[in-house]
């Protein structure tokens, strides 16, 4: 219940936050909505020496039309995604999936940037952004750099972000009128998915998987099969190919593989061709 003692810095601007990160390096963690980090700290599984609070940087909270894509500030709360008219029209999969994250308290505090930067394979939004082939923008003292979502997740709770960078923006290609589906299989509404599937079909098909390995992963074999003309049923049989799901109290590895196949088939059926 009680975290290990830590120092707290409230950043008044992105530059201040970057400066604090530069000063403390690995010992610092960014605090946004706090809904992944604080529980870990209370269980003493995470023990950062310094928290750099960026939760009040309103200039990183936005959902903007940027031509061929929607630009989303890293500090945008799940609730804002869930209720965005722009997303409902241009990227309905993301708006819907954001409404499935945790419970109302989590959605009012948690941020998309925090969820992505945490890199948790059990989180919903990384899989959604994989399906949508999004790009993230990392901001450091030297400026911005773009990272394709496929290059972001490098290991369990590890990303390609440098300790001195802030995940400033997520760029999501517009897919108006595309077929889509989000299948979240869990035992209680507020839980992480045991397995989840995000799917968007817009000529090509993107499929992201939740909780099917140590990182958020793409159902690459199924996508490839569909590109090669396979039926939804046949493609779904390859949903778990190349994944390395873990076993836990909710599911064995075998059961996760099975669920991935069933859920990908259902997602494809719901998305249409």
């Amino acid at each position: 219940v009680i975290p290990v003692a830590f120092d707290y810095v409230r950043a008044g601007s992105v530059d201040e936050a970057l400066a604090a990160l530069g000063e403390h390096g690995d010992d610092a963690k960014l605090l946004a909505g706090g809904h992944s980090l604080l529980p870990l700290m209370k269980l003493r599984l995470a023990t950062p020496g310094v928290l750099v609070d960026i939760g009040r940087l309103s200039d990183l909270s936005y959902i903007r039309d940027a031509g061929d894509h929607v630009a989303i500030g890293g500090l945008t709360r799940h609730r804002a995604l869930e209720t965005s008219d722009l997303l409902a029209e241009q990227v309905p999969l993301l708006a819907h999936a954001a409404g499935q994250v945790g419970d109302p308290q989590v959605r009012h505090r948690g941020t998309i940037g925090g969820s992505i930067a945490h890199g948790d394979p059990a989180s919903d939004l990384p899989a959604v952004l994989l399906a949508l082939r999004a790009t993230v923008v990392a901001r450091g003292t030297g400026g911005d750099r773009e990272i394709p979502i496929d290059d972001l997740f490098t290991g369990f709770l590890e990303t390609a972000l440098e300790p001195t960078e802030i995940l400033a923006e997520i760029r999501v290609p517009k897919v108006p009128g595309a077929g889509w589906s989000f299948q979240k299989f869990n035992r209680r509404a507020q839980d992480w998915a045991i397995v989840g599937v995000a799917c968007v079909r817009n000529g090509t098909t993107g499929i992201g998987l939740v909780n099917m390995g140590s990182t958020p992963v793409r159902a690459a074999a199924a996508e490839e099969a569909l590109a090669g003309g396979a039926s939804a049923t046949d493609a779904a049989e390859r949903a778990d190919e190349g994944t390395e799901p873990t076993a836990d109290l909710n599911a064995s590895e075998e059961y996760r593989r099975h669920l991935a196949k069933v859920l990908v088939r259902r997602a494809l059926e719901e998305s249409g061709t």
Partner: protein
Amino acid sequence: MTVVGTRMVRKEDPRLLTGEGRYVDDLVIPGARWLGMVRSPFAHARIGSIDASEALARPGVEAVLTGADLRDHWAAPMPCAWPVTEDMRNPEHFPVALDKACYAGDIVAVVVGESRTAVADALDTVVVDYDPLPAVVDLQDAVSDRVVIHDALGTNTSYKWELIPDADAVERAFAEATHVVSERYVQQRLIPAAMEPRGVAVVPQPHGGEATVYSSTQIPHILKVMLAATTGTPEHKLRVIAPSVGGGFGSKLDVYAEELIALAVAKQLGVPTRWTEGRTEGATATIQGRGQIQDIELAADADGKVTAVRVNLLADMGAYLQLVTPGIPLLGAFLYHGVYDIPAYSFTCTGVFTTMTPTDAYRGAGRPEATYAIERAMESLARAVGVGPDEIRRRNYIRADQFPYSSAPGLVFDSGDYEPSLDRALELIGYDDLRAEQAARRERGDTKELGIGISTYVEMCGLAPSRVLASLSYGAGGWESGAVRVLPTGTVQVVSGATPHGQGHETSWSMIVADKLGVDPDAIEVLHSDTAISPTGMDTYGSRSLSVGGTAIAMAADKVVDKARAIAAHQLEVSEDDLTFADGVFSVAGSPDKELAIQAIAFQAFTAHDLPDGMEPGLSSEVTWDPPNFTFPFGTHIAVVEVDTETGEVRLVDYAAVDDCGNQVNPLIVEGQVHGGIVQGVAQALWEGAVFDDDGTLRNPTLMDYLVPSPMEVPSFKLDHTTTPSPTNPLGVKGIGEAGTIGSAPAAVNAICDALSPYGIFDIEMPATPERVWQAVTAARASQEAAK
């Protein structure tokens, strides 16, 4: 005007819902030292040296106390109030372990510090030299004595208890039976997870005044007695207060190590002490519920009329015997025939120690387990006989004309009429339509099967007649006390021996007294849960408060009215027989000027200027009531589930409950109890279960992993009731606190098995997780394929 029977909103709620409740952790206690418990990470280990030097060097840490340091504070070991047999083995154990830890969570040292954070940081720095021993987490393994946990006992078996009124009759029934059903069920361990974790604070009083103990407990009165007995503190110098208490479900019906430690350290250091449990800490530090392997056999004739039931239990005590640990199976021991008229009865139980958290009372305590076994086994019998689940029950119900019913195991059921509750539940749920829908789905090969599960239950509550408790070797009585006093200015105080922790006593007691005295319920204040204010009581558990404590309150109110009548007759100069009492006013028929309100009489009783000769001043009364019998609430629950045969997911899609708790004081509170009870029972069926690994480590100690359901997981419930008043008490009430939990788990599992019957799946272990269901379906499909 009557208030009883109306849906009055709870008087407690504005306070609790606006955050104005005062729980132990909310108390401001100047100078209090925080305590932190160093707990064994091993389920079974010898404790070697304890090095506290690093902890003691930390800022804000005052002391680190080991079992040896505190040993002299204990006048007696931790108490067990229910020695169920004369030769029951009860390992001596103390609040802080001396040489061995017997479960992961056992306390091995106590850190005392000036703040909660200082203590939290210091806990990790106390270095304990453990010598790990093999864990015992399987009941069959435990009873084999492969590893003996308590060296001094020489065995893991605590006791064997049996209830076999006529062994020959049982043998004969099985020999002559047309159908014999033999089943084994596993009652998994459950974590009570009350909304408020436990907490305790002790404030020593100056000049040898000993101590005031604040505890998040269901049992302040019993705790006072036990604190005195175990610490040697004179009982008359102890005051125990249970402030706002946020739920217990039986888990706070106990005397805990931390309560004793807080008192001992406060006495030793002469300062206030306090401790609040962490949620993860509480998962192992607070008792767990259930934990049984049940073997049940039914003998029946060709028509499916059950002639005998034979039950053998293996019950998990955990590492030690807590307050009533060994008695929990006995609370179900008399009810394995359920609502059925079964003439021959055999029950045996073996209690065994394991290296896991001690078990004890958890909502229903013994009765959910009994109901589960008989209600699941009746499904097997229905299948064997070839009749529906409703029909097999109708053929066996105790008939209405058999009440009061003397059961084979020796109870007298006060009143009942079971079939109407089944009829009404079937009607509420739309049974015939559901069966048609089920058939249609099967016809079209739908991957989502529908299942309907029936459960009819009876329970014994209103604990209890003291003489019956004596016959069961229980260490206390079952009476309850209540007092009513009309104050000089006409408002009313009610003093309750029963101690609420969410049940709404303040509302219900106000309603009862409002009707008795003819006053506004808002003019009544209910005082409770402080041994200085309410010096006697047996507290709240076992659905006893209304039928025992509420009756005491009602009787006290009657005595107040009797005294008021005598005063009114005296002052109005009429005979008592000429007085009528209505809406709080005594009046004389035919003499409209002659009347006296009870408030005015209270003032007269206060001044005592003009009372009948020899009458004591004051308008108050106190009653202690010992009921003549238990009460026997009953009802029928029907669960409807949808089982996704591709994923194994089970969704509860509809639910009907028709409960009979006798007369209802407040239907709103009754429904609230039923709602919560149903979810708690279905939680055992679908979501909850403490999972220990082979090393005895609890794998799901957080609420992320231990799945307590939320309202999102359940549908709205269809509720109704029948009313069969109890003749056991003048209110005609029975109790409703545990009914929902007792009826619902078997209904849910019966529904799942009903859904999966085409696969030949007739049992699924609780909790019926998606993976378990999927594995069962996968295995059934494979064997069906093989058969082709």
